[in-house]
């Protein structure tokens, strides 16, 4: 008996759906709005970075790689093909130099596209507060 009632309510829903507008988001043409605080691709602001290596130490997946040339200069590499979007680097950074922005359409047929390499020159200015 309960199954019959379930069947009837389901059929009512089905008929209602048949004549209403579909809920589908027509994806390439329109987008779903992202929730606030969405964690997308990590992006470095090279001017603020001091090459303190804190983010490389906390990164659980090895997505961040810092090669120091000397005390002030170095290469900063982010590989979003490895990143797990955990925001640990943003939390660890004392200089607000790395941020997770809301960019997520990153599919590619070439793994090289995921790697961004920055040349970082440390200017020694520490951020206030």
């Amino acid at each position, binding site marked *: 008996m309960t199954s019959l009632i379930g069947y009837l309510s389901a059929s009512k829903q089905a008929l209602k759906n048949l004549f209403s507008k579909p*809920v589908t988001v027509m994806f*390439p043409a329109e987008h779903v709005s992202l929730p606030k605080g969405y964690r997308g691709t990590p992006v470095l602001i090279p001017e603020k970075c001091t090459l303190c290596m804190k983010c490389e130490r906390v990164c*659980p997946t*090895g997505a961040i790689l810092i090669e120091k040339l000397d005390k002030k200069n170095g290469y900063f590499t982010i*590989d979003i093909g490895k990143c*797990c979007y955990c925001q640990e680097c943003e939390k660890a950074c004392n200089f607000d130099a790395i941020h997770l922005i809301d960019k997520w359409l990153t*599919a590619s*047929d070439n*793994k090289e596209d995921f790697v961004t390499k920055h040349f970082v020159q440390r200017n020694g200015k520490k951020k206030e507060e």
Partner: protein
Amino acid sequence: MSDQQLLEIVKNALIKSPWVSHLNCGSCNGCDIEILAVLTPRYDVERFGIKLKGSPRHADVLLCTGSVTRSMAPRLKRIYNQMADPKFVVAVGSCATNWGVFHNCYNTLGGIDKVVPVAMYIPGCPPRPEAIVFGVYKLLLKLASLDLEKQEEKDSVSNLTQEPIRSEEVTT
């Protein structure tokens, strides 16, 4: 009708109806759930002609998730070999792309492309459903832009000249 025109028709038909099959090569299930989310009414992919098939023999696109575990590697290889041409592999998730959270784990190989050639990588842990749709969409765009005049690009979609094959004996 010439061979060239026939191939053009086949290519367009392939772009309009990519059937996908899904293989879990040792993922944490996050990406599998997102793949299911792609099939829900919200992101309905049937409007691109994408259909989830249970059997990899029916599929054109193999959606792989997870960094390949050691015991899964030969099976992934075998499933790939037994699919019918033309076939494409899409690696879904960061750990399928480049190890991700299983970084330096002794029992995983670290990526689908260590075992089989991959046509499209979708990073994200897990990627949003739109990102997966976008990845498959980008793969189709790539196929659509193939130039059939060139032999090697022609080989990747056509098998009109190939004989039916018989898969090898199963060895474990």
